[in-house]
């Protein structure tokens, strides 16, 4: 690692002050003269035919400007990142309770809400399908005409049956995971506005403005150049704003009324209407030798994607790719189904299918370690993938592999160091049991093979000798913008105060792909480095001319060009800018475009697989379980993370802590309950996210790294892996504390209590 001024240091967020003071204007804060309020009419049934839609009463309400239905959609009445199977406004059928049927624009929010209630929709309810395994059955009600299997991915390598025969121990279990809600602070909100030149501006927080632009273009039958999408700032996303949400309806209402239209979803509407983490059922069978060597792993995975595809297919495929964990597994059989049901909609969510299979695999590993009497770290090290190994699904790993580094790092954590002195029971309250748990995970960075994956950055030299970098990536809280500022300041050898970052705007930034897949720093950062190197070359040439020296004799330092061996002669960037304005009437601008390296093989019948670059992390949790109530309190956490070189140390710490807490919620409390297609947990009174009082005071964050030469300053990305194995670390700790094994998350107090009680009964009957 080089000697850097900014890379690897703790740099305050460039947006901290405006966020802390409330000066920043989120999309839900925007207001324009003559603005209308929009309201979406949503389905009353989880599955029904639409017989008739009557908007006349709503239209007659004073203050209503327009009511739109499917008839008003000028382009394709469908959206979806992979296939556009979700209607903007439903025509003949609704497939989940949040399906949009009509929309109103009115002078006030209250009138819009009233009018929405007056839209009369005649439904013929249809039988629903709410179980992904049942949905596969030919005789189940069909959510889509094409059948309920959205995607089936099967990967076979070696011979698992032979492997199980050779195994000394076979562990077989079925796992269930919950439907996690992103719970971003800012619900789906925004304003669409028709500009005087006919351009449609759509201000709505999202993760990929350029893709929103082309999806909107298709729905609205509008030249994409006539659509400007501004998707930054965003009040949180976590994957939930990767797909379109309210934008097509906003656009439709603005085009129809020719006035600005604003929509702000209530928490309840947000939870019912949009994406969740896919609940999965995972049937696992793992075979190992006595010494712990894995010989075979079989997994059947059923992912409930709900009513529409969105990113359900790729989510399943990541679950499949990572199903065996970062381990050497010679015989592999993974059979994955992504299935339509009438259970809301599921889509992208930090981790993207990996936390589900990690929960299953890491519980299997914990069981194996216990049964064979092997230390859980040693068992994992024994099987750990290393650079040059063949991954379980068959591709050779040629990039950085940090499995051993993160496992070795565990020994540096306080939880591990103090594990022998842990008192298993609270001496004063013997019903409180303590334990620690470990889990390992990895996460593909980027979109995978076969998908165009690139970073783009535009860099402008400014009159004050500073720079503006524009990247299409969005900072929705991760701190990516600050990382870009650090990267540009480092590459341009200038102060970070001199770098202005523009994000998420189709007019002002380069397309840099989606802000997802832990790829923001890697792609946009690398593109920024390329743009900066070009800029440096140009500035050096121009400075050399002005100073009348050879450009190779110039050194850039602290925003100044100095001449080698003549440090007294120099030219600051500001002086250079002024000279250029005087002489050339313009300042240089460069672009950086970076094609992400992808694997040189494709996995047959598995779109997007394999990934080429991976981040690795080991998670540790220390818990106290109250055996009287089943309540689990995580008293300490730790993560050892290989996401390449850390760009911003305090950003790293914050993101690891945040990832751990989100994983804690996933493991213990978070689940959007849907019964017969109806949501039972529609706000934060019943959908339980952790509060400060539910999180450990100490979460240790330890970065380690295996060099990844292709990244900007050898950085990879950490956004997802840091949440991926927290849940199994906690459930393994619950087992360590109580002897009860958790096969279903969230491990609510009631679930843990019920298992403890069953355990007690079984013990008594022996």
């Amino acid at each position, binding site marked *: 690692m080089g000697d850097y001024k900014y890379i690897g240091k703790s740099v305050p967020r460039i947006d901290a002050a405006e966020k802390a003071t409330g000066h920043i204007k989120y999309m839900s804060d925007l207001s324009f003269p003559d603005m209308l309020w929009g309201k979406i009419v949503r389905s009353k049934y989880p599955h029904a035919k639409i017989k008739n839609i009557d908007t006349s009463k709503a239209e007659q309400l004073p203050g209503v400007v327009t009511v739109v239905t499917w008839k008003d959609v000028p382009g394709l009445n469908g959206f979806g990142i992979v296939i556009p199977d979700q209607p903007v406004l439903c025509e003949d059928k609704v497939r989940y309770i949040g399906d949009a049927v009509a929309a109103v624009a009115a002078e006030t929010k209250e009138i819009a809400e009233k009018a929405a209630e007056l839209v009369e929709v005649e439904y013929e309810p249809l039988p629903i399908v709410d179980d992904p395994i049942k949905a596969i059955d030919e005789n189940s009600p069909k959510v889509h005409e094409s059948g309920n299997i959205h995607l089936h991915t099967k990967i076979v390598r070696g011979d698992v049956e032979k492997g199980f025969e050779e195994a000394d121990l076979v562990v077989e279990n079925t796992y269930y995971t919950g439907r996690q809600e992103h719970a971003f602070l800012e619900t789906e909100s925004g304003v669409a506005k028709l500009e005087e030149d006919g351009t449609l501006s759509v201000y709505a927080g999202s993760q990929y403005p350029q893709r929103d632009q082309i999806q909107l273009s298709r729905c609205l039958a509008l030249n994409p150049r006539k659509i400007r999408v501004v998707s930054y700032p965003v009040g949180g996303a976590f994957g939930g704003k990767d797909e379109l949400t309210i934008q097509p309806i906003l656009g439709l209402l603005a085009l129809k009324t020719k006035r600005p239209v604003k929509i702000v979803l209530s928490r309840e509407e947000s939870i019912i209407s949009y994406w969740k983490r896919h609940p999965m059922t995972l049937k696992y069978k793992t075979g190992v030798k006595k010494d712990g060597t894995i010989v075979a792993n079989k997994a059947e995975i059923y992912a409930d994607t709900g009513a529409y595809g969105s990113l359900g297919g790729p989510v399943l495929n990541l679950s499949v790719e990572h199903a065996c964990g970062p381990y050497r597994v010679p015989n592999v059989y993974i059979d994955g189904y992504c299935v339509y049901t009438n259970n809301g909609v599921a889509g992208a969510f930090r981790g993207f299918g990996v936390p589900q299979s990690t929960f299953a695999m890491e519980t299997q590993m914990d069981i194996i370690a216990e049964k064979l009497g092997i230390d859980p770290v040693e068992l994992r090290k024994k099987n750990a993938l290393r650079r040059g190994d063949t991954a379980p699904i068959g591709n050779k790993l040629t990039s950085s592999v940090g499995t051993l580094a993160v496992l070795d790092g565990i020994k540096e954590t306080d939880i591990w160091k103090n594990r022998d002195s842990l008192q298993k029971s609270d001496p004063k309250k013997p019903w409180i049991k303590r334990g620690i748990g470990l889990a390992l995970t990895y996460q593909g960075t980027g979109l995978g093979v076969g998908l165009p994956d690139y970073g783009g950055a535009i860099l402008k030299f400014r009159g004050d000798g500073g720079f503006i970098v524009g990247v299409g990536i969005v900072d929705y809280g991760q701190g990516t913008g600050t990382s870009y500022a650090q990267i540009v300041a480092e590459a341009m050898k200038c102060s970070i105060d001199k770098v202005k970052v523009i994000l998420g705007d189709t007019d002002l930034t380069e397309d840099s792909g989606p802000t997802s897949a832990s790829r923001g720093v890697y792609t946009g950062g690398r593109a920024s480095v390329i743009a900066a190197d070009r800029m440096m070359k140009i500035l050096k040439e121009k400075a050399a001319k002005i100073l009348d020296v050879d450009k190779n004799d110039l050194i850039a330092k602290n925003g100044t060009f100095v001449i080698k061996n003549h440090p007294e002669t120099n030219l600051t960037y500001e002086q250079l800018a002024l000279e250029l304005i005087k002489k050339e009437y313009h300042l240089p601008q460069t672009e950086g475009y970076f094609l992400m390296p992808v694997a040189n093989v494709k996995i047959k019948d598995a779109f997007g697989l394999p990934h080429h670059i991976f981040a690795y992390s080991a998670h540790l949790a220390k818990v106290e379980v109250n055996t009287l109530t089943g309540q689990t309190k995580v008293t300490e956490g730790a993560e050892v993370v290989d996401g390449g070189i850390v760009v911003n140390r305090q950003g790293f710490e914050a993101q690891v802590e945040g990832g751990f807490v989100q994983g804690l919620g996933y493991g213990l409390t978070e689940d959007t309950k849907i019964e017969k297609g109806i949501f039972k947990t529609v706000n934060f009174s*019943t959908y339980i996210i*952790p509060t400060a*009082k539910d999180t450990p005071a100490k979460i240790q964050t330890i970065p380690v790294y295996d060099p990844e030469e292709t990244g900007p300053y050898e950085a990879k990305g950490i956004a997802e892996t840091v949440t991926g194995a927290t849940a199994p670390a906690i459930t393994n700790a619950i087992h360590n504390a109580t002897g009860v094994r958790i096969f279903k998350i969230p491990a609510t107090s009631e679930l843990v209590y019920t298992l403890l009680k069953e355990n007690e009964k079984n013990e008594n009957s022996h």
Partner: protein
Amino acid sequence: MIKELNYHRAKTLQEALELLDQLKGDVKVLAAGTDLVVRLKSNMVKENHILDITSIKELKGIYADENELHILPLTTHSEIVESDKAQRYASVLLDACRSVGSPQIRNRGTIGGNVANASPAGDTITALFAQEAKLKLKSKKGERVISVEDFFVGPGRTTLQPNELLVDIFFPKMKENETGFFKKLGQRNALAISVVNVAAKLEKLKEKNKFQRAVVAFGAVAPTIVRGKNIEKALEDSVVDSPEKIRYIAQLAWRVVSPISDVRASLKYRQDMSINLLYEGLLELFNNNWERR
């Protein structure tokens, strides 16, 4: 969307009672709004008038007389938590107030609002049962005093008459020889609605592990808060000198609670938790030599 309402703001108790008399039941009283505003937004309020009593100074404060502690209904949960008098004379209630919602809710929400709202899961109500509280209800025509136990009829329903306002909550000051606890089980440690809560107050005898008097109440396990008279009798009649005995007594909660299943917990779990929370609370006291914290 909140429907259109007629809003009245009373500055004095007299003014409030006058308005209540005129509006004849078509009115919801706003003490702080932590619950009412949520209900208004969900279109769950049928009344057409709102009577805002938040600025009535005479309904706010804590004072002690010779035998009793008075907590006026507009006192916030935070004010109770910070009160020395509550610390000394009402430790069970204080613990309950501490467990309510979040700092924001405790700063805003009032004990009177919590009582009149009559949620079967109301945290302070269970504690008031254990403190053997009485409520003073006042109307333009007169006033009456009712025991907290007789006040509640069902979820959200009380014996408060349309023209009456809750004006005082009072109960015997806890004595040196009295101990007790409030315990709450929620789905998380803050901003949680009780899955089960339990409160107990015990008057100790000189004789070790023996009690002159016990009061035990449970919340979120019946249509209203309920008292466990059988448990109280058992505590008064036994020498409570071992975890096993405490366990045995706690199991009597079976005969007290009649919970339901909802999105937060199942009937079965609530039943077991009534026992276990009481057990845990008593055991903690026992291990602490029956001294309240």
